[in-house]
């Protein structure tokens, strides 16, 4: 599936909930399937800056595609990074850099997590793109 197709699938998934509490329940569930970062990589170097909770992320290149793993000490942050990984992991670095990620707006997540210092959604996306860009240059 392309990034756009994965985004559309998520928009469909979210469309069945009309209550934001239900959407959060779903986000929390997604966090439970998060591809876990290895314990020894949970260092300050892997922390995403700008989150109120701790979110560690690692990016590696495998067969020309970026594979993300992560963990977080807050359940909702964990769900959100899982959501982003679901869309962006196993994709080519350039595709990740170019991804518009309109689904964030479509499912209404943006409004609920405005780009302030108290939430990490924007920081997470930025870090994923920066990691992809760095890996693109080494590839």
């Amino acid at each position, binding site marked *: 599936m392309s990034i756009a197709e994965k985004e559309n699938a998520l928009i469909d998934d979210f469309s069945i909930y009309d209550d*934001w*509490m239900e959407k*959060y*329940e779903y986000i*929390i569930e997604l966090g439970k399937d998060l591809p876990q970062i290895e314990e020894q990589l949970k260092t300050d170097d892997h922390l995403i800056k700008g989150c*109120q*909770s701790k979110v560690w992320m690692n990016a590696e290149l495998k067969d020309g595609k970026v594979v993300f793993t992560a963990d977080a*000490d*807050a*359940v*909702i*942050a964990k769900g959100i990074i899982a959501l982003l990984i679901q869309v962006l992991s196993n994709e080519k670095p350039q595709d990740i850099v170019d991804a518009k990620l309109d689904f964030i707006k479509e499912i209404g997540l943006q409004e*609920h997590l405005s780009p302030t210092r*108290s939430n990490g959604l924007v920081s997470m996306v930025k870090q994923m793109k920066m990691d992809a860009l760095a890996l693109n240059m080494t590839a």
Partner: protein
Amino acid sequence: MVETSFDIELIRAQFPTLQQKVGKYPLVYFDNGATSQKPKVVIDRLDQYYKLENANIHRGVHYLSQISTDNYEKARKSIQAFINAKHDHEVIFTSGTTDGINLVAQCFGTLLEKGDEILITELEHHSNIVPWQMIAAEKGLLVKYIPLLENGELDWDQLDELLTEKTKLLAFAHVSNSLGTINPAKEIIKKAHSNGTKVLLDAAQSLQHFKVDVQDLDCDFLAFSGHKVFGPTGIGALYGKEDLLNEMPPYKGGGDMIKTVSMEKTEYNELPFKFEAGTPHIAGAIGLGTAVDWLSGFNYNEIQQYEDELLSYATEQIKTIDGVTIYGEAKNKSSILSFLIEGLHPYDIGTLLNQQGIAVRTGHHCTQPVMDHFGIPGTIRASFCFYNTKEEIDLFINALKKAVDMLK
């Protein structure tokens, strides 16, 4: 029953912000420690200023300038009355508590010598720590701390030992923003004075809850923010005793703070203008004057009694939730409830409360040393104002229970 003028519905009706919904939930605003909502009288005053009175103050010979100057100076008198300062020129308009403390740190700081000591406490907001660390680094001063106890009170028993002949200033919070602890200001100030130490009181969290009288407390400086006492943002005031303010040189140069300027030298203006360089926040000052006049119309004993009731009720209710730890259990406490729930991150709780219309604050509340003391990264803080109700506390507790169920 004592006759009371305290009608909660009439009070709430004066706050347009409180009449809103967040999605399908009524807004429950429990972030009063961060900022208070504004009564209509303040909003209307700002509106009137910009519609009918806007002009730069002082020096203007024209009609509007005279009106705005008069109203700006009238606001200073309102603040003078509000804190019971002896003179109106002891009230300096600042941008807020942080600005006031920085002014004292920089200007009083120039009077200090290498090796002098500043005494603060472990309970302070960063804005009452960092300015002292900065001037200490610049002038070779030493910053010492009154330690915090487990219940959220300060260990004032150590005051005698920490006050030395070199302690030139003691700066402390009247009320802790993260734990709610009310410090026994009058008693502490008396002790400091007997040591020849001047005192700055950070009143950011006190004036909105109880009567503060600078002459009765005998503090040398007092800083507060307008936006926490129902006034506009970006304005606040610093009170300082006349002789001290006269002794201190200004640290901001510019218009309005001078008497004469030549190419060689400048003669500073008198108080309070010496410390108010540049065009001030005129509308803000006038709005703040209105806010404190409005607040002064209430009986503080009733406010305090009502807020104490809200805090006791919330404390009692929150204890029914499994795994709750309350941070800050001082005997004398303001209406701030800081807590954590075992195994759950404050950010998750705050996010899910927000989804249900409840506004609380999560994080370290700009008091990292307090959080370090308890070995926690932050708390969830619900801070109450006298426009809040027990019904809102019920909504908060139910929303909290729902959040806990979702997260556990």
